[in-house]
């Protein structure tokens, strides 16, 4: 198991190098540079050139990239072109907000999705199944920013129950978490339903029922546990996506997370900020996927046995 984990961690190195190269290259390819964004209207072309020279933007791509990688090897992600702030510091000042939102979102999603998925599977082709399918369809189709604004209008403006923006106090997480969780719930619900449908027809469940095991135990202990692997995989993927930031939800609720940081940095061609943030997000997402893989072992003893071999 430990060898497997170490192997997976070592695989991260080429992944991170590839991510840094691709991101650096793509942002560099886009027309315009940071000087086009930060230079004042009345700056002369000479001043702009001077600024480019001072920032090292006139050096060839490969020189700039290796300079960046040298810093990265020392653990230095560089400073923002826009406000000279340390990329690492800025990223980690935003990360807790992103983690809170991601966890709260997945919590809302699981609380809604797993019971609905299970009910849909057990009562297949009944009205209960239809309701859960409709919910799934709605959750997938509603755009986040629309649902977010709707929730703000109802629960903040009309009912005054929750704050309309920001990240202070637990009450401010409720609406963003519901917004982000609803879309994720739809996917998890559908996965739960189809996974349960596969398991539910297995012979060992029929045997359990024949032995007189109560239906609730059959479903939640025997069926759900065996159906969990695809569900955990989808949850892990959704959580990984949330770590990159939920840009629309963050924008509507003025939630200061990583997503908006990256989008703002892309718009201002702030290469160190974009590359730094994406490298750190890749690392986090990779750890998360690793955790999901390890979780398989705990859910399914057959996989644990394979790791041990």
């Amino acid at each position, binding site marked *: 198991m430990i060898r497997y984990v170490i192997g997976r961690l070592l695989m991260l190195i080429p992944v991170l190098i590839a991510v840094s190269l691709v991101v650096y290259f793509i942002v560099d390819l886009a027309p*315009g*540079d940071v000087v*086009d964004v930060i230079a004042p209207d009345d700056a002369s072309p000479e001043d702009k050139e001077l600024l480019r020279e001072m920032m090292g933007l006139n050096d060839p791509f490969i020189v700039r990239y290796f300079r960046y990688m040298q810093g990265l090897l020392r653990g230095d992600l560089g400073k923002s072109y826009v406000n000279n702030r340390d990329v690492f510091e800025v990223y980690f000042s935003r990360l807790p907000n992103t983690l809170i939102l991601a966890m709260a979102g997945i919590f809302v999603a699981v609380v809604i999705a797993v019971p609905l998925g299970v009910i849909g599977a057990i009562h297949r082709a009944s009205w209960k199944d239809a309701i859960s399918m409709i919910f799934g369809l709605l959750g997938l189709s509603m755009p986040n920013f629309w649902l977010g604004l709707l929730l703000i209008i109802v629960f903040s403006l009309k009912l005054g129950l929750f704050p309309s923006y920001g990240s202070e*106090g637990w009450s401010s997480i409720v609406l963003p978490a519901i917004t982000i969780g609803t879309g994720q719930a739809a996917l998890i619900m559908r996965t739960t339903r189809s996974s349960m449908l596969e398991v539910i027809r297995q012979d060992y469940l029929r045997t359990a029922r024949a032995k007189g095991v109560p239906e609730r135990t059959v479903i939640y202990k025997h069926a759900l546990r065996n159906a969990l692997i695809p569900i955990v995989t989808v949850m892990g993927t959704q959580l990984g996506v949330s770590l990159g930031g939920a840009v629309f939800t963050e924008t509507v609720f003025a939630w200061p997370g990583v997503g908006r940081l990256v989008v703002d940095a892309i718009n201002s061609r702030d290469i160190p900020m974009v590359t730094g943030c994406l490298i750190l997000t890749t690392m986090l997402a990779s750890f998360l996927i690793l955790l999901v893989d390890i979780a398989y072992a705990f859910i399914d003893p057959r996989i644990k046995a394979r790791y041990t071999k």
Partner: protein
Amino acid sequence: MNKTKKNIALLLLVCLVMTVLSGCGQSTSKQSEAGPSEGPEETAYQKTITIAPALDFVSMETQVTTSGTSKTVFLLVFNTLIEQDTERGGLVPSLAESWAAISDTIWELKLRRGVKFHDGADFTAEDVKFTIERGKEQGASKAKLESIERVEIVDDYTVHLIMSKPDADILYKLTDPNCVILSKNAFETLSEEEAYKIGTGPFTYNVWEQGDYLSLLRFDDYWEGPPKTEEIVIRNIPEAASRLIALQTGEIDICISPPQVDLHYIAEDPNLKLLQIPGANNRYIGINSAKAPFNDIRVRQAIAYGMNRKAFIEAVYEGNAAEHNNVMHPGNLFYKEIEGYQYDKEKALELLAEAGYPNGFSATIYSSSGTIQKTVATVMQAQMAEIGIKLDVQSLETATFNATVAPGSDYDMCVNGWGGYVVGPDNALRNMFYTGGNNNNFGFSDEYVDRILDEAVTTSDIETRKKLYGDVQEYITMQAVFLPIAIEMIDVGIKAKLEGFVPPQGSIHKFKNVCIPIN
């Protein structure tokens, strides 16, 4: 049945607890506190004023950043030498008590005594010399200060600005927030990051959570007396609809640029007030006159005659903007009323035929991805189709757009905006229309314009300057490279009780006196 009832009861209980708890959470965390802050008189004022601008505060580097919100904050934390009185017009003293031109190239500034920096140090002539000489090398302040060759200290409270050439606009340039006075002592003893936090203004930096909020606290030793408001919070709420809702729920006190389609919510609410102030931005269509067929003035004139400004005002701004037909902004002291080009489709068709394009031609119009810019481009496309010009609209995100229409590039037409009038008439016109001007992306070069601009900036007699700038702005407008459309409004929603709001300096707001009395 019993089980169902139990479940419903449990659900209701959970809802009740959530409601009570969320109510508690909200009142302690977010509502602008109506704390017992004592003003100089008996009236008590709301402790904190929360402001949500359209764009975020991005940097404390006063001489480097060009962000409008950051510049708004600089006017709270620092002072300039001279201020613009945006209510009555003209220049008023700030850290400089008085100023006089000793000759064409020497300005004498008498400085205010008894001014303290936030670290307790006294403000003196050394700080002025340090700030200006440092600013001549920094990205954003450089263009404003480059005509000053050096600063000579006469005594602790008198300086001479020695100019490399006469610059009649220098006093306006000194009012720009990129020219706020920094503390020499702080830059010598602290890191640059810390030194940029020390000013002489009415508020001091408290907490900055980038992307979330910036908190400023009252400076009790402020030379004009401490402000009535104890804390100003600049809140980043990027989505305009969310900003408006936050104003309606009372979570913020000032909402800048709410959605244009929702302005009536503010106007109809007795607790709120809608302010519509002519902004700095002169929205225009730019034409690359270095390129065929736009190098023929008749083609440019045809386009100008083909533009129906009324339709722009309705379709783009829903009536919330003022039609405009001059390259100069009406807020400038040297603005002259002119007729410019008025919509005349027949004349446009005639001119196109005369220029050899009776069936029109095809071209590309670029805009940035902002809603206004994109809509202007679309309306322009429809209007030009009426006179046979087929426009392809290309909307690009900001950095790409700036690079595409930079001076010397090969674009046809673009949707752009210009707000440079705030730092004087020379800045307003030279950057755009002087041969090789920093923002002259029209490929425009005219010996007459260059000569008049050079003459006007070195003339001290105000009437002569008015005549020169009046003539030249009319001449440039008729050259039809910069086709003005509208002066855009700055929409601001405020709490009805809020006092001390003054018109902005261009797009830079002045919030130092805002307060809300609570009894």
